[in-house]
């Protein structure tokens, strides 16, 4: 039965895959053989050529046996050389069609198409690769079918092609963003590259005397303040350049646009990526920032979505480096999300500082005691203990929460500042917990569970006053059910009315 599956991937796919896999197969194996046996270089070359032909034949066979097609109600994908597999993806299950173009694919004019169904399994409907025109044709076909079968999406799909750009980053913004992505990790990467080529370098990179010698050559004074400052400056400059390069590669031409009930994100310099965020599937929004970028009014916006293709723990970046008003523009399209209203958010209990210190004091004391066994001056470190309290107080300053009719706000973090915007209708469960120290101090922590939340990035309000926590939990569930069922029983709004 092959009805419907009438198309092959683009023939250049064979070349593309061959190029991708050739280095490992054609170099590694013959090279290993050349070393282990006595056949030498010519033998290895013959082997490489033979392997190349076999590999090419296999790629061709796989390509030949892979077929797909757009049917009346579904997309059909047939694959497998020996074990045949036929998969149908019904149109009304398809969320959208994502298009990704790596650098190599762009050279060939190809695009990788991913059919999103939101089932969470990856490579569900992966067409790797078709021509760009074919990718757009597929997407349009899916759109048209969806508009036909789904009356709710129909009205919005009419305005489809007229996409409205919600957020974009121009090159100066991108470079500024890159400077904030300053990273020293890449210096280690640079060393790794140097190490690989070290036989071509005139010196041993791991010989410190050489480094000092180099510094000596270029700087008149030995290990003066100036020399150290110069080394630090070079390290900082390298870190900044690395940050800018990485950011430009990832986010060049970043654009978020609105198309019907979807947000479309495009980004990347060499690898062009397109992703789609369904507005109805957004579970919560997160605004993230840091102390320095916060000072200049910059922060990032991401959405936590249900199911569909996710990066970084279920979060989809929507505007990585934006002003407050730009974030408001994007949020306005995803009701009921909005930034917290002017009456500032509330802080958690003052006793949070006590609890925090109580939690860290014992390990800190133990560490100092252990150290003073070897270091006579270790007890002097006791003078640093008040810093724990200062850190806890600072942390409390940035840990706030607030509740409106339909949203819960939670903010947390001094260095990595995060603000969660949680529509009450999306709360899956609430957990109030009290540990032994918290019970002594009359405190409680409230964890809010949402769909798609990751372990480390889930909203949690730590150390509320016990009664306040009970009241807050009660208010959240009460307002939630008003949203859901209305003030009087009978009118039960659907999820779509609430979120969409």
């Amino acid at each position: 039965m092959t009805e419907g599956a009438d198309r092959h991937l683009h023939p250049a796919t064979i070349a593309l895959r061959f190029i991708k896999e050739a280095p490992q197969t054609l170099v590694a194996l013959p090279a290993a053989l050349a070393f282990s046996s006595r056949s030498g270089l010519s033998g290895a070359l013959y082997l490489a050529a033979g392997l190349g032909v076999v590999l090419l034949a296999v790629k061709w066979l796989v390509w030949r046996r892979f077929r797909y097609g757009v049917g009346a109600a579904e997309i059909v994908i047939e694959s497998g050389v020996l074990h045949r597999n036929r998969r149908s993806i019904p149109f009304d299950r398809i969320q959208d069609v994502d298009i990704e173009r790596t650098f190599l694919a762009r050279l060939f004019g190809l695009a990788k198409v991913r059919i999103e169904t939101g089932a969470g399994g990856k490579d569900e409907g992966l067409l790797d690769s078709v021509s760009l025109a074919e990718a757009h044709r597929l997407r349009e076909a899916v759109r048209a079918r969806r508009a036909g079968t789904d009356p709710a999406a129909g009205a919005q799909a009419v305005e489809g092609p007229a996409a409205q750009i919600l957020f974009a980053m121009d090159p100066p913004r991108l470079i500024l963003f890159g400077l904030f992505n300053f990273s020293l990790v890449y210096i280690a990467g640079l060393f790794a590259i140097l190490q690989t080529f070290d036989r071509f370098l005139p010196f041993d990179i791991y010989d410190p005397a050489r480094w000092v010698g180099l510094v000596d050559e270029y700087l008149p004074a030995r290990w003066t303040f100036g020399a150290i400052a110069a080394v630090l400056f070079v390290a900082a400059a390298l870190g900044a350049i690395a940050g800018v390069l990485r950011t430009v590669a990832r986010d060049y031409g970043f654009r978020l646009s609105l198309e019907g009930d979807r947000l479309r994100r495009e980004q990347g310099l060499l690898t062009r990526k397109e992703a789609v965020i369904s507005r109805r599937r957004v579970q919560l929004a997160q605004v993230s920032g840091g102390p320095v970028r916060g000072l200049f009014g910059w922060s990032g916006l991401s959405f936590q979505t249900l199911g569909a293709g996710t990066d970084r723990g279920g979060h989809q970046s929507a505007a990585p480096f934006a002003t407050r008003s730009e974030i408001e523009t994007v949020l306005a399209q995803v009701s009921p999300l909005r930034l917290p209203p002017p009456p500032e958010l509330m802080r958690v209990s003052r006793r949070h500082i006590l609890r925090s210190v109580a939690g860290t004091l014992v390990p800190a004391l133990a560490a100092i005691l252990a150290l003073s066994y070897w270091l006579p001056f270790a007890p002097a470190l006791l003078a640093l203990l008040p810093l724990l309290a200062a850190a806890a107080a600072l942390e409390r300053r940035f840990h706030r929460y607030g509740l409106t009719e339909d949203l819960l706000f939670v903010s947390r973090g001094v260095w990595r500042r995060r603000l969660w915007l949680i529509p009450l209708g999306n709360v899956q469960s609430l957990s109030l917990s009290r540990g032994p120290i918290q019970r002594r101090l009359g405190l409680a922590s409230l964890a809010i569970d949402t769909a798609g939340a990751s372990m480390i990035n889930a909203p949690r309000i730590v150390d509320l006053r016990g009664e306040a926590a009970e009241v807050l939990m009660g208010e959240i569930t009460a307002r939630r059910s008003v949203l859901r069922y209305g003030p009087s029983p009978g009118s039960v709004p659907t999820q779509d009315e609430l979120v969409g």
Partner: protein
Amino acid sequence: MENLPLTPMDRGLLRLMQLRGAMAGGFLLAAAAVGEAFVERLVDLPFGLLLGAALLILLYLALLAPPRRYRAWGYGMDAEELQVRRGVWVRVHTVVPLDHVQHIDVSQGPLERAFGICSLVLHTAGTLHSQIVLPGLARATAERIRDEIRGRIREEPA
């Protein structure tokens, strides 16, 4: 949400906890008995020290700890939500809005079967607590709760 009046679990859960504690303690006791035989040759410990300690732990696990843990458990349900309380050391109070429950399991292991109880497992779309477990319900109670919740589950958003 008001704090709903909480129903304690079936007494069978207490007996199950005691049995599990006794099994863990018994295992420890056996290990101590073996240790007693070997340690004597290496270090000069007074005879019965290990065994005595293991016996105390057994008593704690089988007799002292289970009633406290059992009493910490409780649940309450109204038309819109299920509330669960648990925990001795860290006390946790969980509220699950019923319209978001994805599906419900009633499960029963061999030991639970022996005590005539089963567990009710609520699966939500959340990821931190995607399963909310209510252990130690009488079969009839578990099935009644399951059927009530089933009536509250609504069509999930696409």
